[in-house]
Each structure stands twice: as structure tokens, then as C-alpha cells.
């Protein structure tokens, strides 16, 4: 698989009155061309900060990318100047946000907003750009695009606005589309429409997608690879089938067990306790205080992200130990 993006040991911190908050704490992953990677996690897990770091939109100060590399087509984005980033942002890496209401400018027409991106990045005239805007609106299945071009955002419904956002994001045919909770503000029937659209556009345009979400259902529907985050760290990384069939990290297992499901009726098993305070993270494993399988070593030593089986990475002492025991079991039965 050809790589388009590689994030290596990324650390992003925020300085606050409470102390330094390590929002992203050593995140590494690879994104293949045209792949759809899901980043799941609960609020405060660092999934949004990871994506904002990639596109270099971390407000600085108080935030800062402290260390790490973000390699996009052979270039390190972390060391790029703001000027250089502006050429990449919206052009080669585009982003859509959770709330389509606040991410569109209320005093510009939809057409102007789509055309703006095209004019800036592709150097077309306004007339040509507007023509392309019509085409983009057609691609995101907005009926009567010529007429809707002259409408303002408030004349669109939530789902339609998110379609416009997608049209803007894809108008320069980016290599990567980062979607930060794109359907969270939408109703389920509209969510289904948008997810379907994203799947089709991923095929047509070939843009890789990084989908940030808290919903495991959305991940199961759209993604090929999944990265589970907790307290700013990657806890588990694998392809979508493995992670749902054979989740290894106690946190991933906990998430799946605490979800009410339409197709199965059973009592929910919640994860005990509260999410950690990012300013005062536990010394060892960050999930230690809530973990069902915790071992004595988990308290003081941070586990590393290790490949347990091919392509399945987990950060957990318990999983490692289980695996060793299994291997030893095999050996002893053989001898």
C-alpha cells in the first residue's frame, strides 16, 4: 500500500493554569492512499487535537506541537511555515468540521464560499470557479445546484450544509480529507445519507479520509482501519474487522460492551470510573484506574504500543502477558 501520510511520535501540549495538558501524547500511525482511517475515542481523548495538529491549526499559544513528525508525501509538515501550510491546507489536505452551522460564513452565498477555495488554490477566475462550484454541488447531490448557488447558509438544512462543506473540501481534489465528527450534529437518517456520500466520493475522488468520531457504529460502517485513542495515546490499532471481532485492549473491549445494540439485548457493562484528568495523568498505563484486568506493573510502567498479531497493535501489559502465556502453553504441550 502506498503511503500518503505518516505521523511519528506526535506530542501536542497545551499550557493552562492547571498545568501542561498533554492532549496528544506520542501518537504514531500511517495512512495509505485512498484508505479510510477511523480515529475513535471519547471526549478529551485527543482525537480532534491529533487532526488539528496534522493540518497545523493548533492555536498557538496556548497549544504547541512539542515533538514528532508528520510526513505528508515526503515532507515534514511540523517544520513548515504558516505560508507554506496555507498552500497545503484546503488544497491538498482538506477538513470538514462537526458543526456545519458555524463553519460556513453566514454573510456569503454558498457559491462564493465554494468558489473562494477554488480561486485561491487553482487560480481560476470567479466565473470559472463558480462553474466548478455548480459541478461540486452536483457531486454532493444537491438538487438544482445553479439556483442554490445564490442561497445563503441559513437557507440550507443541517444535512445540506454538511454537503456544502464536503463540496468545499473536495473542490481542490485533496489527497487527504479530515472529517472531524462530520455526522454528530445530524439526525440518523441524514447521517446515513452523508456517510453514504462520503463512501461514494472516496471511491470517485480517491482521497484518503481520516474520520474522527466517538461512534463505533459509524466506524464499522465506513472505515477500513481503526485507531482507538484514550488520554492522548493510541491504545489499539488494526483493521476494522479485527478490532470488532477480536478487540484486545481492555478499553476497546469496554467500549464495545457498554454500547446498547439494536440487534442484541443484554445488560450493559459500563467502564467503571471517570475519564482521566489530562493535567494529572497516571504514571503508568493511563487506563490503569479504570481497567478490569490491571496488573501490578501497570501502575508504574507505561506499556508500549506493540504488534501482537500481524497488523494488530495494542498498548497493554495484560495483553502481552496473555500472549506470552499462550505461547508458553503451546510450547509445553509440544514438549
Amino acid at each position, binding site marked *: 500500500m502506498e503511503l500518503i501520510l505518516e505521523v511519528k511520535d506526535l506530542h501536542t501540549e497545551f499550557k493552562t493554569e492547571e498545568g501542561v495538558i498533554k492532549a496528544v501524547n506520542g501518537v504514531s500511525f500511517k495512512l495509505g492512499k485512498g484508505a479510510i482511517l477511523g480515529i475513535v475515542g471519547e471526549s478529551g481523548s485527543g482525537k480532534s487535537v491529533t487532526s488539528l495538529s496534522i493540518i497545523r491549526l493548533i492555536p498557538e499559544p496556548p497549544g504547541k506541537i512539542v515533538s514528532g513528525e508528520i510526513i505528508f508525501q515526503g515532507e515534514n509538515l511540523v517544520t513548515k511555515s504558516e505560508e507554506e501550510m496555507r498552500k497545503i491546507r484546503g488544497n491538498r489536505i482538506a477538513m470538514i468540521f462537526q458543526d456545519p452551522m458555524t463553519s460556513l460564513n453566514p454573510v456569503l452565498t454558498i457559491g462564493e464560499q465554494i468558489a473562494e477555495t477554488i480561486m485561491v488554490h487553482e487560480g481560476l477566475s470567479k466565473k470559472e470557479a463558480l462553474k466548478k462550484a455548480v459541478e461540486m454541488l452536483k457531486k454532493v447531490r444537491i438538487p438544482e445546484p445553479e439556483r442554490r448557488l445564490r442561497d445563503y447558509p441559513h437557507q440550507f438544512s443541517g444535512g445540506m450544509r454538511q454537503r456544502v462543506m464536503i463540496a468545499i473540501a473536495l473542490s481542490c481534489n485533496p489527497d487527504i480529507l479530515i472529517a472531524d465528527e462530520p455526522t454528530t450534529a445530524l439526525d440518523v437518517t441524514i*447521517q*446515513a445519507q452523508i456517510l453514504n456520500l462520503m463512501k461514494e466520493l472516496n471511491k470517485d475522488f480517491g482521497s484518503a479520509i481520516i474520520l474522527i468520531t466517538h461512534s463505533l457504529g459509524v466506524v464499522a460502517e465506513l472505515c477500513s482501519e481503526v485507531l482507538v485513542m484514550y488520554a492522548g495515546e493510541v491504545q489499539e490499532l488494526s483493521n476494522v474487522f479485527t478490532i470488532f471481532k477480536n478487540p484486545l485492549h481492555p478499553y476497546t473491549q469496554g467500549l464495545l460492551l*457498554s454500547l446498547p445494540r439494536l440487534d442484541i439485548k443484554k445488560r450493559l457493562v459500563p467502564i467503571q470510573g471517570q475519564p482521566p484528568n489530562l493535567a494529572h495523568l497516571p504514571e503508568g498505563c493511563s487506563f490503569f484506574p479504570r481497567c478490569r484486568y490491571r496488573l501490578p506493573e501497570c501502575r508504574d510502567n507505561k506499556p508500549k504500543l506493540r504488534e501482537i498479531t500481524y497488523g494488530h497493535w495494542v498498548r497493554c501489559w495484560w495483553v502481552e502477558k496473555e500472549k506470552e502465556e499462550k505461547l508458553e502453553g503451546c510450547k509445553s504441550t509440544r514438549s
Partner: protein
Amino acid sequence: MKAVNLLEVKNLKKYFTVKKGIIFSRDIGYIKAVDNVSFSIREGETLGLVGESGCGKTTTGRVIIRLLPATSGEVYFDGENIFNLKGNELQKLRRKMQIIFQDPYASLNPRMTAGEIVVEPLIVHKLISNKKEKIEKARELLEMVGLNPYHINCYPHEFSGGQRQRIGVARALALNPKLIIADEPVSALDVSIQAQIINLLQDLQEKFNLTYLFIAHDLSVVKHISNRIAVMYLGKIVELALSDDLYRSPMHPYTQALLSAIPIPDPEIMQKREKVILTGDVPSPMNPPSGCYFHPRCNKKIKICSEEEPLLKEIAKDHLVACHLLSL
């Protein structure tokens, strides 16, 4: 479960008038937020009310508990028409019906401690006055919802979202109510915390024989907790059935689409599943479509759908549907 109806809602309507102008304002139309809704809840039962945003589910809850005046219709609680109650009688009724709100950040007074918040209902209803009793009761209530009693003097901002929602639950339970209207109690919470609150609500129901009207947009949560489910669309109930029946054999095209739109956290199922993707958006409740409100988005519509409004009819046992296709 007894077969006694604790709550009976009959032809409930709530119209909001839409005004134009500031000084010489005039009415230019209505929004029919709740339009002729009828259902009943048995004692100890959980009725789920689902629908997308703007379908009137929250308004229904608020009208029932008289936080909003109804336009017309009747609501019977324990056989008594609550819209006729006034003063003292209304006060008494309020002890038996409580509400839990969606947003655990906005629904707690930031200037009161957790202890003060949970005993506030008892003070309002003059059931408690002495200080020692207050502290005792507050501790008991906090413990009941799984909070540590030493939190009694903490302020809401010191709690996490899940803990705040527990305070909201404790406040609702303070008066020993029979009916609790839970308006999206878990939708602002993370999944791992959501499960804690759902389990808490289920445990409390068993312990105190509570009756719930559980309002939510997330059908998987509603199906998990409810005995029966009512599906609303644009102010009307389109289907009402036992929750397993509704999931196994949804009859209204809207319910079918709604169910198929919910992502299941299992990629293998998701690949095999056939999806009904609705086109278009929910129409404006200001000028709803003619006939069946769902017909512009329905993939099975026939001629009569745009002409005549379908009525909610019992199609199978305990399974009510409002759709022309089923009553042909």
C-alpha cells in the same frame, strides 16, 4: 407489571403560534409541535419516545409535566385529568412526576452544592426543614445514585458530565415520584458513561417500581431500555409497538428507514445489511405536506398518501401504525 395505566395521554395537541412584527405583532401561522398524540403508560413500564430533531418528542414530555400549557387534549395521571388541577392539587401532582433533563451542565444551578440541589425539591414542597435531616437526606440520595456522600459540599463544576447527570437523577428521585420523564438523559454523555447512567436508571426502576417516559433520538438506547416504543414524525406518532416487535418487524416505512440508518458496531453485519436511505430532509413543521406527513420522503407512497392523513390503527396485537399501505 400491573396492567393499570399510570399515564394516559389523549389527543394531545401543542401548537406554537408564529408571530411577525414586534409592536403590532400578528400571528402568521402555527407550528404543530405535537399534533393529536395519544398513548398510555402502564405502571412500572418504560415507554420510549423516539424521533429526529424537531419531531415534538421533547415538547410532548414538557406538556405532560405541565412545563408548557397544552393547546388541547387530556392527560390522565392515576385516573385524574391533570390539566384541571390548580394550586395545591397541582403542587401535589408535581411530587409524583419528575423530569430529568438532557444537559447536565445547564440543568444544575452552579451556585448550589450537590447536597443543596438534591434536597431542593423537598424544601420546595415543605417536606423537610431541619438542617440535620437535610444533610442526612442529601447523603442518602447521593449514595442512591452511586455518588460518594462526601461530595455533598461540592459544586456542579467539580463534577464530570456523568456525575452531574447522577445528581440530576437524585434530584428527580428526592420526592419519591411514580413517573419520571427522562428527556435525552444520556445523549450528552460519552459511551462508557452513558452505559453507567442507563444501568442506574434500570436499577432504580426495579428498586422503586418507577415508570419511565424515556425520550431520546438514539433508537439503540431507547430499544435497550424500553418495553414499548412510540416513533414520532413531525408531531405525530407513526408507530407504537413492543420494542422487540418494532425492531423485528417495523411496519411504517419511516420506522424501517430509521432502523436501517442506525449503524451497528459490527462491520460484518454492516456489509450485509440492506439499507433504506431516505432522500430529502424533514419538512418544515410550519407548512407540513398534505396527507401523510411522511409521503414526500416515502419510497412506497401511493396516490392516497398525499391526499388523506392516515390514522393510527392497531394492525397486529399491541402494534399500532399510521400508514395507508397497511390499512388497504
